[in-house]
């Protein structure tokens, strides 16, 4: 049963009581409780196609988003993210609750999933080939990822690429794609299919909005993909579209820096990343025209 099959009233009621809403997000099972309207709306906007779990399923992350205290619900309201009673971050302004859910979930996955090597990268797939786009904030990886997904590519993740330490495959966690500042308008103009949820201003990352992931990507989220290209993107105003090969050594060094848990995995991390680099063609990529970029990548997978 999908989340969209619940009425707004039922959804709100389940979120508000201690049982919460139990969602399957890729391979992860999440239980969310919150009595914040923004959060309910965020789920309705962006998580409608996600499957609900059964009551007797195992939950990976029990998370809660609520005001840290009664005072903070009434006066200059704040929201606090809790992972089963543990509060890893300082509270944020109340209207950032939905964004905090996404960031909190990133934190949960990044810190408790050492069965994967986790790269801070977007990853999409077409014709059985997964392209990994590692990137620091501002590199344009999420914009690129959103545009590819809106052009029919399968979304595996826009934030965290999970490489299995067992078989080297990319395991999908399709979730709403986080768009920042100008990217929100860029993606709106790029496709009329784009559905972007609430847009929140003045967060730590500027203005933030989330793009709804395609239903097809969610339905195929149990299917891992084989990584074939590792591409370091760089958005540069008025630049030519330019894909340049990057040596394996340099690619390894750069990718290691973009990993969340490379040092936790130790020698296993080195092996997994080494194998990934071996089996991928590695590039740097500079662009300013999204349509040209999409065309180029689509040709590469034809």
């Amino acid at each position: 049963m999908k989340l969209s099959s619940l009425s707004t009233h039922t959804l709100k009621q389940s979120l508000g009581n201690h049982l919460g809403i139990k969602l399957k997000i890729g391979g992860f099972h999440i239980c969310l409780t919150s009595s914040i309207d923004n959060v309910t709306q965020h789920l309705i906007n962006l998580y409608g196609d996600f499957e609900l779990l059964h009551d007797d399923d195992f939950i990976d992350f029990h998370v809660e988003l609520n005001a840290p205290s009664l005072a903070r619900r009434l006066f200059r309201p704040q929201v606090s993210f809790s992972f089963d009673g543990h509060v890893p971050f300082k509270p944020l302004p109340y209207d950032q609750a939905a964004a905090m859910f996404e960031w909190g979930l990133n934190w949960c996955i990044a810190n408790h999933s050492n069965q994967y090597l986790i790269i801070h990268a977007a990853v999409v797939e077409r014709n059985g080939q997964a392209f990994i786009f590692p990137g620091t904030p501002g590199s344009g990886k999420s914009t690129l990822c959103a545009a590819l997904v809106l052009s029919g590519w399968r979304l595996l993740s826009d934030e965290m690429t999970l490489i299995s330490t067992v078989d080297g495959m990319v395991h999908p966690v399709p979730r709403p794609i986080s768009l920042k500042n100008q990217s929100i308008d860029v993606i709106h103009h790029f496709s009329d299919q784009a559905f972007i949820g609430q847009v929140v201003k003045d967060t730590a990352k500027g203005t933030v909005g989330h793009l709804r992931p395609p239903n097809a990507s969610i339905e195929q989220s149990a299917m891992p993909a084989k990584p074939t290209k590792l591409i370091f993107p760089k958005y540069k105003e008025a630049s030519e579209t330019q894909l340049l090969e990057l040596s394996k050594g340099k690619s390894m060094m750069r990718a290691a820096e973009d990993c969340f848990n490379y040092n936790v995995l130790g020698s296993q991390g080195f092996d997994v990343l080494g194998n990934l680099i071996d089996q991928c063609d590695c590039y740097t990529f500079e662009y300013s025209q999204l349509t040209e970029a999409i065309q180029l990548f689509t040709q590469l997978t034809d």
Partner: protein
Amino acid sequence: MRMPVAAFLRDVFINPHCVEDYHLQQWDLLIRQARSANVLVRLAEMFKESALFDAIPDKPRMHLESAWIHAQRFKLSLIWEIKCIEKALLPIDEPIIFLKGAAYHLADNHAGKGRLFSDIDILVPEKAIPEVERALIKGGWMTNTFDPYDQRYYREWMHEIPPMRHLKRQTTLDVHHNILPKTCKFCPDSKKLLANIVQTGENNTWVLAPEDRILHSATHLFHEGELEQGFRDLSDLDLLLKEFATHPDFWSTLLLRADELKQRIPLYYALRYTHAILDTPVPQSVLDQSEKYLTGRVRRAFMDFLFLRALMPNHASCNDRWTGFARWLIYIRSHALKMPIRLLIPHLLRKSFRRFSSKDTH
């Protein structure tokens, strides 16, 4: 003894095999309790030892595996940090005694397994403190506080100097000269502790005697004010007791040593609550003997009321309506144990005033 609250985690620590017919919801709660109590890795180790690990359902096994991988990394950092401390203190002629987690690791005690912690504690003879401090500063450690009041608080009253932090690695090192504050009326004679230390390895690296390791663990836990890790620390005691109990004369040596080091009351608590909560096999005669250490039936019943709640895993599912109150009382109690009231009241007033004017970083 009747337990006021139940916890899957407790059942599994007593008998790991009871998970064999757990359904997923039970696993869910077990993993949550273990994570909150900071014993996820210890649980993983227990399942590995009992050959149960591979039969665990995928989902909960992933969480144990992930925590276990993290612990392997932690262990490497710990070994490295100990090496760095040993190197920095090479010029010191006095013994360097590692305490708690680092000691369990060095002595290869069961209690070292799956134990994650943030600070390393060492103990040195009090007279060696100035030269140890100088050697550490030379090695890159730096005091955490330059505040004259904090400095005086530690140096005059406490059993340790202000915590030191390594400038590059950001690791914290606590340098002690005793196991309880000088102001505490149960503060033992540190010469007696030093008389029985045990050397580990070739360097000038030592740990406390087995009985003293237990007594230190007990006194630390039962003087502590915040018992978030209480269940883990109780499990340390359980593992130490089980490991050392195989030596002949262990129990009589332990009772005697508690007497010598003025640690009879912490030992009473340690034996009573490891036995009650983790079913640690303590001989009845030893339990009876130690019960005499805490006088007053009402007092003992009251401490049961507090500790049988506060020592359970720090998870909402292990609380009853009194747990919050019990934890609060234990917090208050810990301050009263640290120093006499005539010192404590001015200290707390000063702390709260400074916190109010937000100068205090503690």
